[in-house]
């Protein structure tokens, strides 16, 4: 359980799959896990920037998602990222929106 938000259960999002034989995962080695988290934060920020949002790793266990004015939510994994992002900015984050795609294609 997460002691801050009281969410029961660990990470079970498919993108950071559990280490079972045959399952594709980048979470097996500690260093890989940290590297993957950093990489995820870096790439997510390129998508989030046009929405005025930024993501930061928090203690290697959760992420902090913040608006430019500092409104912040703690999220567990990718499954919680987009619902939280939409809550914070009050509009949909649609990857099929041409403006969003153009921003991603232009991303630095």
């Amino acid at each position, binding site marked *: 359980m997460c002691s801050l938000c009281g969410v*029961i*259960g660990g990470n*079970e*999002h*498919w*993108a*950071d*799959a*559990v280490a*079972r*034989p*045959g*399952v*594709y*995962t*980048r979470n097996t080695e500690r260093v890989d896990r940290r590297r*993957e988290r950093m*990489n*995820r934060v870096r*790439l*997510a920020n*390129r*998508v989030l920037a046009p929405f005025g949002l930024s993501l930061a790793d928090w203690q290697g266990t959760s992420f902090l998602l913040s608006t430019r004015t500092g409104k912040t939510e703690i999220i567990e994994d*990718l*499954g919680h*990222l*987009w*619902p939280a992002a*939409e809550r914070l900015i009050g509009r*949909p*984050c*649609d*990857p*099929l929106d*041409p403006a969003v*795609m153009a921003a*991603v*294609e232009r*991303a630095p």
Partner: protein
Amino acid sequence: MTDVPAFTPVNLLTGFLGSGKTTLLRRLLADPALAGTAVLINEFGEVGLDHHLLDRIDDTMVLLQSGCLCCTIRGELSQAIRDLLGKRERGLVPGFDRIVVESTGLADPFPILSTLKADPVLRHHVRPGNVVTTVDAVNGLGQIERHPESARQAAVADRLVITKTDIADEAAVADLTAGLRRLNPAAPLVDAADDLDVEALIGRDVAATSGPSHSARAWFSETFRSDDPTRAPAGDAHPHGALDRNSHLGRIRSFTVVVDEPIDWTAFGIWLSMLLNRHGERVLRVKGILSIAGEVAPVAIHGVQHLVHTPVHMSGWPSDDRRSRIVFIVDGLDPDLIRRSLAAFNGLAAPARTLQPAGDGG
């Protein structure tokens, strides 16, 4: 006590009202291969009848009676499965190594599958097995066109069973087959009048994390059998008459996205979770084999609406073609937008980007 598998597979048997679910279930349960199977039956009506039609009544058969599984009694489903698992642990019921859930004819299969993954206890004990959908050869096509539940049941199926072919004329069966191929090109079609291969229907799980022994070739040929990207899509074979674009059969379509460059797993995870968050209701199926940057062997992904199964590392490529291929079954989404969006997100991974020639939009 029999050996208890680490993850007990839960198969969902669905299909529209009167499409032959219970008849199929009765035949399946008679097969020795499914001897160790617990059964959960859900009925919409006030009085449960279906369980009387099945000969086998014992403690591993549970009737969920208070409404439709997908909307009202998801909690009851979790509780029923927990009870079964608990009784198995305590030896109060005969050991079982598989659970089959027969849903009501009106159920949307997705919430049932997601219950298994979302429940904090169940997800450590069970995993979703094949979804088997029955479609009636006489009324099936009309039901798919008129009832969104029916179209969804067919689209999310891992195995499609066409029933009542003995009382339908050949043209109707051919129309239905073409319609189902459009909706769901990946699922094998089985004629209920033939001898049932129980192992292929239920036993061989599409989403199973079967490890290195997993046959990449079998999986691949099953998924892409009717969906060779170099060929015209199977959906071009229209059933007789023009399709109404507003009918479910017209709006639900499948297509394959082929990506030449290796997929960046991190960017792909961000993209697919973003897509499913916004459009999950309309992405009925995602199924694909990915060439991941930095990995030699391919990775198989498999998702139904908001639910994505844990990705499976396959033992090797089935052929020399090492491109990623993803089959989508969508309800009213534009394939070109999905292609462009995936390409844009995949370009986010910086090292790949610096290698690209200037002027390609990166």
